[in-house]
């Protein structure tokens, strides 16, 4: 009886956990762990089975002579800071407006959310058209200098182009999270603040904001990690150009491996990428978690 019960437990463990664990191990765990080995090798995509151990050479090269990598590092940090602030401010503002008494709230929500369901690759191509042809026409019609710039033609405007599109894409997603949080703030607290003579902005700052901190934690986490890993948009909107001036970190890794065919070096960069992302997201969640309060 006891033996058969144990056998049944083993069978259940195997049936319930087995298939998922195998897929996860083969696709995520093993490749991830292999990264620690391949980072120290010279390896290319044509001879996948011939990786040569070269010790610290890849890291030496990255830290000593890879200006492009560090340029894309700075690019990514700048991009992340701006898009996190921009997307969350816009999303919070939209959420505030769409939870007030206005007409057509549901339609408006749908519209603001729409860019989200389309993938970064397709959005990038759409905006490539807007920046090159659409802006040109608007510039001719209005005579505004802003629209007559070659938006994807210079490093600065290329950076702003990516930032604008990313905020446009992300804000709707964060908006629905903020809306859910704002709707969840108890009405009587808001009323009480009003009766006590608090102005509209005081009510938002002192009453609502502290209560939606959990949503802010989530949204900051999501935007930070998505912005830091931005790739699809980069590929289809600017291709990292002009030159390599708008390469994000993820794009730099991709180009190193799949364009320059240096898989070993690419893996080493990806390992650093992982370390940086871990540090940033863990710190950031820890910082905002401390600010959470109960209603």
């Amino acid at each position, binding site marked *: 009886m006891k033996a058969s019960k144990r056998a049944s437990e083993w069978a*259940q*463990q195997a*049936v*319930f956990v087995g298939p*998922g*664990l195998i*897929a*996860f191990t*083969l*696709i*995520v765990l093993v*490749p*991830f762990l*292999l*990264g620690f080995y*391949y980072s120290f090798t010279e390896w290319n*995509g044509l001879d996948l089975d011939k990786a040569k151990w070269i010790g610290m050479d890849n890291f030496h090269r990255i830290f000593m002579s890879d200006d492009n990598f560090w340029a894309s590092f700075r690019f990514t940090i700048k991009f992340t800071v701006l898009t996190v602030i921009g997307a969350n401010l816009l999303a919070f503002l*939209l959420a505030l*407006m*769409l939870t007030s*008494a*206005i007409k057509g709230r549901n339609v*408006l929500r749908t*519209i603001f*959310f*729409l860019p*989200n369901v*389309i*993938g970064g690759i*397709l959005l990038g*191509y*759409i905006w490539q*058209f*807007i920046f090159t*042809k*659409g802006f040109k*026409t*608007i510039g001719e019609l209005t005579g505004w200098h802003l629209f007559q710039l070659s938006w994807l033609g210079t490093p600065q405007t290329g950076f702003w182009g990516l930032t604008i599109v990313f905020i*446009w894409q992300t804000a709707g997603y964060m908006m*629905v*999270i903020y809306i*859910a949080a704002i709707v969840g703030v108890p009405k009587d607290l808001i009323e009480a603040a009003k009766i006590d003579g608090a102005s*509209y902005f005081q009510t938002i700052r002192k009453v609502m904001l502290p209560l939606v901190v*959990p949503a802010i934690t989530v949204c900051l*986490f*999501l935007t930070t990690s998505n912005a830091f*890993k931005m*790739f*699809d948009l980069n590929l289809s909107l600017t291709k990292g150009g002009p030159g390599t001036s708008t390469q994000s970190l*993820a794009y730099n*890794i991709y180009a190193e*491996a799949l364009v320059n065919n240096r*898989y070993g070096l*690419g*893996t080493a960069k*990806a*390992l650093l*990428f992982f370390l940086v*992302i871990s540090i940033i997201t*863990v710190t950031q969640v820890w910082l905002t978690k401390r600010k959470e309060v109960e209603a």
Partner: protein
Amino acid sequence: MFTRSQRIRSVIVQALTVLLAILFLSPFYFVLVNSVKSLGEIMVDAASLPEKYLFTNYSKVWDIIRFPKVLGNSAAITLLSVAGIVVLSSMTAYRLARKPTLFNRILFTAFISSMIIPFQSIMLQLVRVTSLLELRGNMIGIIVCYLGFGMSMSVFLFHGFIKSVPLEIEEAAVVDGCSPYGVFWRIVFPLLRPIVMTVVILNGLWIWNDYLLPVLIIGSNKDITTIPLAVTRFFGQFTKQWDLALAGLTMSIAPIIAVFIMLQKYIVEGIVAGSLKG
């Protein structure tokens, strides 16, 4: 009831939101009107409505990117992967939640921690592993990859939900002679419906729009090309042919927009539920 200043404020807010909404939608306007123009007309004026509606742009691209084929591929890969993720991750999460042995607790921690790993830190080694396992270049391969990548977040979401399902229901079923597998599929799984929706939506949107994994795993096998791959290849071949490109873009984003508009209530709810758990 409303004071004068409140009324003014609500008019301003109304105007501002409508204005922003128009701004948000304007890129789609440009794509749509120019998708039925000739290239010459686009170059002259990209903002006005077309003088002559040129629907041949659509029929041309339809054939060039083999639209029915790639649409079918995207649909098949997304549906099969999502179904697989739901089955495997719900079963795994159930066992991890109900039998928290040391092994299972470590495993759960491994699932959660792995969510932080960026795709770039896995992809090159994954090319090696999938080549060895002969998972590259075929549909089974890409689906297995999505199962692997989809597990961690989905296990996490199911795990949180299953812990809130009362054990008494299961105990009653066991007393009635139900097998452990029957308990899960007939009693527990039907209760998971809300979180199943969330898992389906989050994974479905991701897989449908995913680009880099299919590039690495499907590569040049034209028989299982997905929409993002086909559009990218098209842009590589027909640079600056905006008349065709915009028709192609319009038909490529149409399916997901249609699905979104039909299911938007569930999609928004699913995303909110998924985010606030995470």
